[in-house]
């Protein structure tokens, strides 16, 4: 039985998309193949690696590979492409550059969206909060130490001007 395609709307990084979507597509498939944003990566497709991580409308990290796209009808999500605003990198992206928290870069979109969720959830994340937020995403080359240092740096810049300076890429 061929499942009926359904018309769905999805808000991605603030832009509305209207698309015909098959029940067979996951949210990851739709983001990459239909919306055309390929920053979100496909790794294991079974929930183990976290490279497909996006943020839901509450700014939480979720796995786009483990959820049917049609489940997201009418919802709003943020992908890695949404971190950069008006040509300015997010504070986390700048910190990742400063700390060398990137090597091959394949995990980086998922790592950044997981880190963003930690920053969204806590004013002052502790060591445990960062570990908890990052345990679901794996990096095969850089390791997790520099990533954590970069997140800690942004988290500690609780002083707004410092965060803004980072946002300016200084």
């Amino acid at each position, binding site marked *: 039985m061929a499942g009926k395609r359904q018309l769905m709307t999805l808000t991605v990084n603030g832009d509305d998309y209207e698309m015909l979507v098959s029940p067979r597509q996951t949210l990851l498939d739709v983001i990459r193949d239909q919306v055309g944003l390929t920053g979100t990566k496909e790794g294991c497709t079974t*929930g183990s690696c976290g490279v497909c991580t996006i943020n839901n409308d509450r700014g939480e990290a*979720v796995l786009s590979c483990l959820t049917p796209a049609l489940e997201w009808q009418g919802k709003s999500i943020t992908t890695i492409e949404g971190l950069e605003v008006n040509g300015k990198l997010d504070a986390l992206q700048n910190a990742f550059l400063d700390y060398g928290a990137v090597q091959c870069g394949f995990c980086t979109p998922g790592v950044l969206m997981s880190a963003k969720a930690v920053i969204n959830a806590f004013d002052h994340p502790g060591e445990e909060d960062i570990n908890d937020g990052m345990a679901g995403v794996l990096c095969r080359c850089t390791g997790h130490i520099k990533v954590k240092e970069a997140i800690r740096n942004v988290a500690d810049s609780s002083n707004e001007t410092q965060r803004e300076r980072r946002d300016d890429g200084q």
Partner: protein
Amino acid sequence: MLLPEHEFSKPASLRDSLTELAEAGGEVKLLAGGTDVVFNMRGRLFRPDVLLSIRDLPELQEVEQLADGAVSLGAGCRLSELERHALLKGYPGLIAGLRAVASRHVRNMATLGGNLNLDTRCWYANQTAEWRAAKGPCLKTGMEVCHAIKSADICVALNASDIAPALLALDASVVLASLNGERTVKLADYYTDDGVQHTVRRPDEIMTRVLLPKNSDRMAYIKETARKGNDFAYATIAASADGHGNQCSRVRIVLGSLTTRPALLLKTAAVLVEHGLDDTTIKAAVGEVRDELGALTNLYTPAAYKGRIARALVREALQQLREQ
């Protein structure tokens, strides 16, 4: 890889969902957080005709304190919401169970009802479809043979839920709704010994709520696993008791991830209620564990290891209870 062919349906109310479930021609799979359903559809273990999404049903989202002191938890509540819910502050053992599941990412999607109805897992069945095809089908995939335990006549796949042991230790019940009304089933009577039909839920029913009775005075919860994040358990234990020091009553000890039905150790608990939590009694109780667990079924880890870890976890949990 695309998911297998199916229709996707997302009714707006519980009533509409139950009607669709009752009137469906083919196989309907309920979809909550999807973290198990999509996983199993990718592995082609699930090939439903219809996915019926119940994640956002308003009737499944409430957490409330009932008049008799019990707490009612909506089956559609996400694990990460329950972890920090004010009404669960007094249940550290349950919070430990909630937090033991997978990763933050998965818990932001996964629901309580999905966890309690998590499909059983097996080293054979949970491979890719191609891997399974090389060896042929099993009890779970349509043949009268088990590749995990040659002599098994029913499916011996494991119940891997990390939350079920905690809720069993708290003597929780679940509410099942159908078009004919609601029924309440003790979680202790909810699971079966058959890995294929591993709960008593009927196909026309949706789990709507979980009822937590009066809290226990003390509770311990331990999950033993390879890595702290994102791994299924080698074994879990949840133990609860009333009373202080060596003196104890209402003892409930549950081992998870070792058997098809999470193991509620009634005999072991009875030894403790009679003699208390002193070292000698704990030792005697630990001696009962292996017998009471019964046949160790699916062998993710060697049977001897399972026996050892079961005893070690019971000892550790009882010592923790005594110190609380």
